[in-house]
């Protein structure tokens, strides 16, 4: 394991066929001018994602085939732990997370293990409706109760973690559908990680379109409830106490 300056932050960006936006997003993160290292996890893309990310100045992890966001993120966490990063943050490659918010979300780690950059938290104008909204509200309510703090956007992919959360994630970070958000979060909370949320505004995606199909939203409701129920019955992980963690008793 390399000894890194403990202030360095690893920005993990899972990317699957994001060639149109990944280069700009990486450049934007690096242009913020903070000690951020960008790691793009190329999740078996068939386009030029890896080359463009690497040209923009990111380190690229090339997964040999598509594993899904959960798989890509666990690879990123593994990389972070092996290289001694104490703090990581997940940022979407499609540009909907504003790199200028990274430091705000990271600041949440001062009094928690996981910090979520949340939409709906009275900032920005991200709106959904119908079954998808009910699903998000239900999830938010249940997980807020578990975490004993108000969380409004538990499926946000804009999440930061400290070393304690990283080692918990490495124990449990499923590659299943929603495993990267709901399942991993619930198990992390039940294993004793503290969660906080930071309100952020999301930008419209640079590539791709969000789905507004009601049938898809209904399926989403079903699957997310299913994922939640499973997560609630899973085994807790035992977090190895990391040396000189500044968390104290949380």
């Amino acid at each position, binding site marked *: 394991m390399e000894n*890194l300056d403990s202030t360095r932050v690893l920005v993990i960006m899972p990317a699957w066929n994001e060639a149109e936006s990944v280069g700009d997003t990486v450049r934007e993160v690096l242009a913020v001018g903070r000690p951020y*290292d960008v790691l793009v996890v190329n999740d078996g893309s068939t386009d030029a994602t890896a080359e463009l990310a690497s040209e923009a100045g*990111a380190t690229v992890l090339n997964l*040999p085939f598509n594993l899904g966001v959960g798989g890509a993120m666990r690879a990123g966490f593994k990389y972070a732990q092996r290289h001694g990063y104490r703090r990581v943050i997940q940022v979407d490659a499609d540009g909907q997370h504003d790199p200028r918010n990274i430091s705000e979300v990271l600041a949440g780690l001062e009094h928690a293990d996981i910090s979520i950059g949340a939409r709906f938290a009275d900032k920005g104008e991200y709106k959904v409706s119908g079954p998808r909204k009910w699903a998000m509200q239900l999830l938010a309510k249940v997980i807020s109760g578990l975490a004993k703090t108000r969380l409004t956007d538990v499926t946000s992919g804009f999440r930061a973690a400290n070393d304690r959360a990283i080692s918990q994630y490495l124990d449990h970070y499923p590659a299943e559908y929603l495993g990267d958000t709901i399942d991993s979060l619930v198990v992390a909370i039940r294993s004793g990680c503290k969660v906080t949320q930071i309100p952020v505004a999301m930008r419209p995606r640079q590539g791709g379109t969000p789905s507004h199909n009601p049938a898809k939203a209904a399926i989403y409701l079903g699957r997310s409830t299913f994922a939640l129920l499973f997560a609630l019955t899973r085994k807790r992980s035992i977090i190895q106490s990391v040396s000189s963690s500044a968390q104290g008793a949380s």
Partner: protein
Amino acid sequence: MGNLAAFLLALAIVGIVFEMLRRKKLREKYAALWLVVGTGTLVLAAFPRLLNIVAELVGVQLPSNLLFIISILLLLGVCLHLSWEISVVEDETRTLAEEVAIMRAQLERLQNNASPRLKGSEDESSTPSSPK
């Protein structure tokens, strides 16, 4: 004569499983179940009276129904076992894929460090330098 056909069929199945095992086409842990099924069928085909006796003992009126329920349960068990095995294999594959990706990134960095004139050396601006 129907019994003879059943006996031959069972014999063929046991023979095939045995041959696959011998040629290492089948791992022993999967073969065990099939050998048990095959031998059971062999015994039943040789002594059909056995089925009637067992059916009477368990309280099943029609002996053939006993045969059906046993086969369905066995097949269900085999399916479940295979799903479980493939989940384990997928999980192992996933871990390997992560390892391969990390190692490849490290290897590329080492190569770039060793021969800076090669292409891609400008990537180094972003990768963490490693003060030991």
